[in-house]
């Protein structure tokens, strides 16, 4: 990519969205010259040519200065791919162990096909691993094995032998006591005559699912390494988040929601790290925007966040349709439905990543992924505020040009940091800041906020249960002073708080709703309540 020092393209090839951006070096600094996002079914080449055509029309002098070729095919590219997730057959002696192995694999970014000897036989386990599309098999139990597991250890070893014989090229990951025994029964005789002609099976020995703190963490790291690809978009986002934390010298959290899963990455400045930042990242298929077959829980969850008067059958049909065509009907009701599904996905991502939730809250939260491409930024801010219920202040931003994934694929940490530093104001679309206060009581005014920026002051009364929106334009810093009659929690407990906030398209959102958020039980009242909050940040919804 950097062989041409003056201009390059980035491509983020996701399961649902292809995002492209054009980056050029102007006056010694990298700048974003344009970006586009389209359905992944579109041919990227015409899209890139359109990007160039728009730049030629808007700024022919930049095209001339950078000597940008007429066709996109002549420009170097930085490509990240987030699809598809590999499929891992997870085979275990008991249902409980199956679930713990599956959770570790999910956090490592695998799709999982689980099976256990408790509710299946040898055939079901072997068939699960041999099914078309399976990229690897994980066979595991605790080390030392629990009572139920010890009884089935020999059968697990037989399963490992049977898989290795019938599909020699399949990576076979042995974990816990199965790894300790080598995953071999040693006496398997089936199809013995065919064995010498086949290549040796690839057996990999992984940490036990009960090892580490929290248990399963080393196994997750091992499984993550197994599917690592240099152009992996999600790993790229994790790397870029780390560089971003080092550049802005603040705690950063990235929430990526994709068609097949999501990523949550947290990073914080750390002088002790060679990259200048520490980080923790975890993926989950449970955070898929539109799961392949929406179950009852998914339908219920989306319905709970939806302001559309849809019945369960109709909602399920729309979600299934969106699985086939994730970009379909992105306007009107479709936009509302997407953001309801995105809330569910973010909520599941947060639930699936407790280790990140246990970290101190982030100063900057970055939303990335195709679902955020077309919705109005203030509506996205509300969606994030609805789900991230942590008291304190945070700045919200959107990776609108989907640059974090491609930039994160750069091997050179210094080069990545330099690019992010140069592009900082353009990589992140400033949505605004959100201040969440916890521990508020009563329905009458309980305090005031005064926001000063650019020589003017705005004051508001604070009423529990609602949102106060204060206009702070993008690029502006403001000082907010909150004063409550009773002590509350805004990061720390107290009555008076002085916070410096950044502006954005949604301004400053003072969130005085419950933590965690409580919604009315009745569907009509719940929809009315959600619509009321939505109207304050999405006033032209009916347009």
């Amino acid at each position, binding site marked *: 990519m950097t062989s041409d020092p003056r201009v390059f393209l980035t491509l983020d090839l996701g399961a649902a969205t292809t995002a492209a951006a054009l980056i050029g070096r102007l006056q010694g600094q990298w700048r974003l010259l344009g970006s*586009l996002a*389209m*359905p992944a*079914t*579109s*041919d990227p*080449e*015409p*899209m890139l*040519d*359109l990007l160039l055509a728009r730049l030629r029309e808007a700024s022919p002098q930049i095209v001339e200065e950078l000597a940008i070729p007429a066709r996109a095919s002549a420009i170097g590219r930085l490509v990240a791919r987030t699809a598809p997730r590999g499929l891992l057959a997870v085979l275990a002696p008991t249902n409980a162990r199956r679930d713990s192995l599956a959770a570790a694999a999910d956090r490592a970014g695998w799709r999982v096909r689980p099976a256990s000897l408790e509710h299946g*036989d*040898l*055939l079901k386990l*072997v*068939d699960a691993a*041999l*099914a*078309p599309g399976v990229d690897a098999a994980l066979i595991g139990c605790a080390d030392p094995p629990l009572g139920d597991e010890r009884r089935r250890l*020999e059968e697990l070893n*037989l399963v490992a*032998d*049977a898989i290795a014989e*019938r*599909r020699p090229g*399949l990576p076979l990951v042995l974990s816990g006591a199965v790894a300790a025994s080598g995953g071999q*029964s*040693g*006496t*398997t*005789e*089936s199809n013995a005559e065919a064995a010498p002609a086949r290549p040796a099976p690839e057996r990999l020995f992984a940490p036990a699912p009960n090892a580490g703190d929290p248990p399963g963490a080393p196994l997750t790291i091992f499984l993550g390494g197994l599917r690592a690809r240099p152009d992996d978009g999600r790993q790229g986002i994790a790397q870029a988040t780390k560089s971003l934390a080092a550049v802005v010298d603040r705690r950063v959290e990235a929430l990526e929601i994709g068609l097949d899963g999501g990523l949550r990455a947290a990073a914080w400045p750390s002088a002790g790290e060679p990259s200048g930042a520490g980080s923790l990242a975890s993926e989950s298929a449970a955070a898929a925007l539109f799961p392949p077959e929406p179950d009852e829980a998914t339908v219920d969850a989306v319905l709970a966040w939806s302001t559309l008067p849809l019945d369960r*059958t109709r909602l*399920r*049909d*729309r979600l*299934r*349709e969106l699985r*086939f*065509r994730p*970009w*379909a*009907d*992105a*306007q*009107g*009701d*479709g*936009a*509302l439905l997407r953001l309801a599904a995105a809330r569910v996905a973010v909520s599941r991502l947060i639930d699936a990543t407790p280790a990140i939730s246990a970290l101190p809250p982030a100063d900057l939260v970055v939303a990335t992924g195709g679902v955020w491409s*077309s*919705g*109005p930024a203030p509506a996205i801010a509300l969606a994030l505020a609805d789900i991230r219920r942590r008291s304190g202040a945070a700045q919200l931003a959107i990776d609108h040009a989907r640059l974090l994934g491609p930039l994160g694929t750069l091997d050179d940490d210094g080069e990545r940091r330099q690019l992010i530093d140069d592009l900082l104001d353009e990589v992140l679309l400033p949505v605004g800041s959100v201040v969440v206060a916890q521990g508020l009581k009563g329905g009458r005014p309980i305090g005031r906020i005064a926001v000063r920026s650019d020589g003017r002051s705005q004051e508001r009364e604070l009423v529990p249960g609602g949102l106060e929106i204060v206009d702070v334009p993008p690029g502006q810093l403001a000082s907010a002073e909150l004063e409550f009659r009773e002590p509350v929690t805004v990061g720390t407990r107290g009555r008076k708080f002085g916070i410096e906030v950044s502006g954005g398209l949604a301004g400053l959102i003072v969130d005085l709703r419950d933590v965690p958020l409580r919604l009315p039980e009745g569907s009509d009242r719940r929809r009315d309540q959600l619509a009321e909050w939505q109207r304050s940040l*999405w006033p*032209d*919804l009916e*347009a």
Partner: protein
Amino acid sequence: MTGPIGHPASGNNGTGGGVAMANGLGLVTARPLVQRSPTLRFPLSMADTVRVAPGQTISAGILLADRLRDPLVEETGRRRREEAGDSPLLSAGQRTWLLSGGQREPLESPISGIVRSADTATGLVVEAAADSLAGVLAIGGPSRGRLEIATGADGELRPAALDVGRSGSILVVGSRVEAETLTRARAMGVRGVVVAALSGKDLRDFEASERRQRASVHQLAPFAVLVLDGVLRRRIASPVMELLASLEGNEVAIVGDPPQLLFRRVESVPTPPADWVRVASGPMAGREGRWAGPAGPRRFGAAVHLEAGFVRFDDGPPTPVPLADLERFV
């Protein structure tokens, strides 16, 4: 609306030609109308007995594999001894596990072709000597029969319209179909249904009916449903309908992986004009017209900004439509 087909082109090169790329049309998702010699996969279980070998040429109706219904694994011992005809799955030392499980069901080839692979790990992979029309989902199958157009592109077939006269056919039933119609179709000896959309409720009801049928002792005749577009009701695209009409009366087959309708190789495919586009989703779903150029980012309902293109429907003025809602046929 009149269909877009002027006259059959000589073949279909799958690119849409230079015209398709002009004026921003390349930004619209291209949907192949016909796929040549598709590769099909039939999943296999270790309990299945494969009857063909890689490299073997097969014709429609040939036995590909015997599938064991409800396979069980039993360990030999005092209660269960190995008998003639038993199929050992695994053995370790003195212990042996046998496969057993009632009836076997034949898996017949729905089409001619060449077997490329035949093991449990990859499934039975066949390179079809046929062309195909892709769908988004297939249920049941594989199945083959004579293609019959039962309704128009936006029609809906009612159960009462089905009788034994349609036995052995694969029916094209328009924009949607109910589970009750599918169940009756199977009972009347129909071999398959091709439809634009199938709702989730009808899919679940039909699958439940299939499970009940399969739980009975009797072997079921093959039956398959091919869904062309998705879940929400819409008319079958006119280029697809023209293709299906040109195949009426011919032997076709429905397969599930990938979901496709297979038919004899055709020399010429009725091809729509290169600038013909269809609204595949959104408020105007199902409408078709001519591409009139890119419209740039546009504001649509709920203040959402989307890349758009102009489409001229019938003789009306150019209408902006989100690019993501459009498709063209190549």
